[in-house]
């Protein structure tokens, strides 16, 4: 983390508030707090924010707020952030069907790490992964905290079509594909939960700063959740993150 927060110009309508240049939970927690505090403050002239690993991009309307004023307000929020009551981070459960046609690369990941597929599942589903940021495609979570014991290289030849909901591993990262797209991740499972649905009230399920936990399900349960999702009736299991 920097000693002094950096305020960087990104053209005439965006300001980047940068806390550091490393991927650290502590920095990300600070960004989550700043994002929520700015939203809570309801500053006129701020259009929206994009939280990322180590910075927050603030999109503003220069006709409504001067840049100096915006920076002053951001600085004021940063100083009083500790005292502000902000909601605790949440843990969102992602029911996942591992292996088989849903996760065709799970054997490769197991062999690569010289463990069984059951161990891959056990390790993968035992961590609460921090959502560092959402980007790349609508609803795609950049997750941190995967165990090195299930790390695996990307596919030499990327697939042209990866089904929606696929759960994959690339290097020491794990993630979920919210839309059908090409990609080179090793696929170990799939979730029937829709991470992205443009016609839902909250189109994107996940928020940066929260956590997700994969929960193993069988095919019967998969089909059941899939059906409920189709009808817009599935309720995702969300709980508070225990404070450490």
């Amino acid at each position: 983390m920097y000693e002094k927060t950096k305020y960087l110009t990104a053209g005439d309508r965006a300001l980047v508030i940068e806390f550091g240049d490393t991927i650290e939970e502590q920095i990300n927690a600070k960004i989550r707090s700043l994002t929520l505090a700015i939203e809570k403050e309801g500053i006129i002239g701020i259009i929206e924010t994009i939280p990322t690993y180590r910075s927050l991009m603030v999109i503003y309307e220069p006709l409504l707020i001067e840049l100096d004023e915006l920076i002053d307000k951001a600085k004021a929020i940063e100083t009083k952030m500790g005292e502000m009551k902000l909601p605790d981070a949440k843990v969102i459960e992602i029911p996942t069907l591992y292996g088989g046609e849903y996760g065709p690369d799970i054997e490769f990941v197991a062999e690569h790490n010289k463990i069984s597929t059951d161990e891959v599942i056990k390790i993968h589903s035992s961590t609460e992964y921090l959502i560092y940021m959402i980007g790349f495609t609508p609803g795609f979570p950049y997750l941190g905290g995967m165990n090195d014991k299930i790390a695996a290289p990307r596919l030499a030849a990327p697939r042209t079509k990866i089904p929606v909901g696929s759960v994959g591993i690339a290097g020491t990262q794990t993630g979920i594909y919210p839309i059908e797209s090409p990609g080179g991740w090793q696929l170990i499972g799939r979730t029937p939960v829709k991470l992205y649905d443009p016609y839902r009230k909250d189109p994107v399920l996940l928020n940066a700063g929260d956590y997700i936990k994969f929960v193993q399900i069988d095919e019967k349960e998969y089909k059941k959740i899939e059906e409920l999702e189709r009808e817009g009736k599935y309720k995702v299991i969300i709980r508070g993150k225990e404070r450490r």
Partner: protein
Amino acid sequence: MTTMKILKPGMYTTIQDVGRYNYQKSGMSVAGAMDQFSLRVANILVGNSDGEACVEITIMGPKIKFNGDALIAVAGANLQPMINNEAINMWSGVKVLDGDVLSFGTAKSGCRGYIAIASGIDVPEVMGSKSTYVKGKVGGFEGRILRAGDEIKIRSSEENNFTGIVKLPTEFIPMYNKDNTVRVVLGPQDDYFTENGVNTFFSSHYEVTNEVDRMGYRLSGSKITHKTGADIISDGITMGSVQVPGHGSPIIMMADRQTTGGYTKIATVITPDINIVGQLKPGDSISFKSINIEEAHKIYRKYMNDFDVIRESVAKLQSTPISAKKFKVRVNDKEYEVSVQEIK
């Protein structure tokens, strides 16, 4: 109810408004018009609010049949618009009648045109916008580019009493050139580049490559050198961000850009000049000029104020009584009363 039937879709035709905001934190691209000046002015010319959705057309325009009367305006690139094969004015209101066919010739200047229709296009707002974001399959008409056979509804004209034909005063009509200089503000990662690299960026002419789309413009030319590397920990990207990956050639991020990325961004094109970028075609030339943020904001305020000035002058022209002369004409033994109006 008036509809527009797409007879030929053209090269890349989508419905766009000023873009989809508030969902970038969820990874949603903003989308929206690539040249927002032309979009806004086209709307003003037909009495719409600035941000209404238009049909954005690219290089090769579509062929559209109107079922029902409408007032339209075509702005932006000169792709030679025609009604029933007769050339029509650009940057002007144009009355179209039931059965008329709007088509386009070859591109004379610029890259993207905007067709505004009085009262607006009747497609649902998704996440607060009518803009088509093709990759996310949302907005516009079924979340995709328009195809032959599509029939798009126009909102009922009762909501719009703007009926006059108004031409945009010429001083506001932009020129699209093959050589362009766009103004940028340095940053956010200008300190990742060598002094030489930054100098190269500002002293070179870059050519627009064939790899251009609504997501971004890849340029070729003198390589911009980094101090150590081109990769950063992914952060936010905005409209007009100039990314420079390891290969040293700049990419200008445009409407369908991803919200975050892991390459250094040397500078950001100022809002009014993004419209110039949106009108560039492969083979055109572009260079960059540095201005500071204070100056950029001064230019921005003037740019936004111009829309008010344009709206006022259009309103004035609209209210000017048009002198009409009435004649009686006999044709084939039938007497007709004809009124001739001078259109300004």
